[in-house]
């Protein structure tokens, strides 16, 4: 039953324009980045540029990495908010909860299918961003060896590092998606849930510049700093601690959000 409900959640997403707006953005972003690199290639004298921008200029494998950095600021929080924030609240808006909750699928099934659909959307967007970035980066610079902080890795190893980076990046993004589902369930209002999810993400990012909250002891417990944990993959020797920490923190946020959302969804009165 969960599989059937999940397939229909995907079909519902596919029938809504907002889903395509998000996916369109992840297709356009790599093109914009590569166009910018083409117009103004980084020079060795530019000291203000990030290491990954220089990598992107040297190898197509660097382009998805720069995109992950930029997407952490607003793109993926926005994508997670747009879909997860709407996925339950839109049923309240359309008053369709009473329609689907009086069939033979239990509330737990419906909630699980919605979470799975939101996760699928976000992972799809992440994969599309990476694939498109690698493709257009490869077209511009070739898919050759990739400079890292400590060495230059072969094309094969660079490809594996990009995949590993995306996997590590997915943890906090999925946790943020879970927060979006929670807000969507509790707020019962799409706009409030979408904005709320964005505010959570942006609020956590703002703490990095607030004195007192910018300490590692605080930042380590926040979700958005985990969006940068994958960077440690490009240092040798490999330090696994930041990766494991990102996984645990993401799991903590994600599970707590989903458990609260689940309980609320199971117990709530559907009076609208």
């Amino acid at each position, binding site marked *: 039953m969960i599989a059937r409900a999940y397939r229909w959640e995907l079909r519902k997403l596919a*029938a809504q324009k907002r889903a395509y707006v998000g996916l369109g953005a992840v297709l356009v972003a790599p093109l914009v980045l590569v166009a910018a690199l083409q117009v103004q290639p980084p020079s060795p004298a530019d000291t203000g540029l990030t290491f990954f921008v220089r990598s992107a200029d040297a190898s197509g494998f660097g382009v998805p990495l720069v995109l992950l950095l930029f997407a952490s600021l607003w793109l993926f929080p926005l994508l997670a908010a747009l879909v997860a924030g709407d996925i339950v609240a839109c049923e309240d808006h359309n*008053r369709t909860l009473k*329609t689907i*909750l*009086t*069939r033979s*699928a239990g509330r737990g099934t419906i909630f699980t299918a919605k979470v799975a659909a939101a996760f699928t959307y976000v992972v799809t967007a992440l994969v599309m961003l990476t694939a498109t970035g690698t493709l257009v980066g490869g077209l511009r610079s070739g898919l050759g060896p990739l400079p890292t902080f400590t060495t230059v890795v072969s094309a094969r190893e660079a490809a594996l590092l990009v995949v590993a980076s995306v996997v590590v990046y997915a943890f906090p993004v999925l946790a943020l998606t879970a927060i979006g589902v929670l807000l969507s369930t509790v707020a019962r209002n799409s706009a409030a849930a979408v904005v709320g999810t964005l505010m959570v993400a942006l609020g956590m990012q703002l703490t990095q510049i607030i004195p007192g909250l910018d300490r590692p002891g605080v930042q380590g417990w926040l979700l958005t700093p985990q969006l940068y944990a994958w960077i440690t993959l490009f240092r040798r020797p490999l330090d696994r601690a930041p990766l494991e920490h990102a996984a645990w923190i993401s799991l903590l946020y994600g599970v707590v959000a989903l458990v609260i959302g689940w309980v609320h969804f199971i117990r709530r009165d559907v009076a609208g």
Partner: protein
Amino acid sequence: MSAPPVELTDLRKCYGDLAAVDNVSLTVRSGDVYGYLGPNGAGKTTSLRIMLGLISPTSGEVRLFGRDPVLDPVAALEGVAGFVEEPAFYPYLTGRSNLELLAALDGGTENGRIDEVLDVVKLRARAGDHVRGYSHGMRQRLGIAAALLRRPRLLLLDEPTTGLDPPGIRDMRALVRTLAAEGITVLLSSHLMVEVEQLCNRLAIIQRGQIRYEGTLAELLARSHGAYRLETTDDARALTVCGATSGIRDVRIDSGGIRFAAEPPAAAALSGELARAGIGILALVPGRADLEELFFEIVDPSGAGS
């Protein structure tokens, strides 16, 4: 003996200090077309939401075919379908896609069933259109189609003719009759007396969350036995005569003349008394109160409005 399709026992739902449903007990028997009659805000929709497992009661029990929709809605709703308020669908999907989605949530349906139910509600020709383009009546009919997909033994319909134009109302009532004739038990919530009178064999009247009457329609209408309507040449004096004649009770006057209740011999005696008083009788006819009159006698005996 199998459990009745619907059994409510001391059902209560409170929102703060307000009891939207206040100790409601009723039983819908197999084969009934059961009217759940009450003014807007009486607690009909809240009761139906509890029956469908959408909201939890504050206290009391609900059983659908003996099963509790509060504890296990999926099991309790087996063989049960319906809608509360207007049926709601995904506007960005077609009518057919909406039905396919709901069939999937029921675990699938046999080939051709969706076309079958679309034919029953006469929507097949528009099934490929997005629901956002449907009229209110079409959505109501799609709601019935969605309910029929489940091959229900019990249909819970909340004011299914609300907002429909006269042909739509006629078609919807005909559809309910047809479904009832096929053996489906129907609980029909309505604030329209004529609808309940036309369709239902049993009914409950609810007001301010409380059941004021439960029983057969025939028993309720029999309450008007012995009612008479009188028109005279001098109603003011006739009222006095009525009051003085033995066996004449419940005398009142309205725009249709004088109304009273009496056994036939007392009514005959009254005509003699009126003649002796020199009052001409224009009409003295046994009245048969309709459901509307009886409804207002029950929910608003003072006539002050509720």
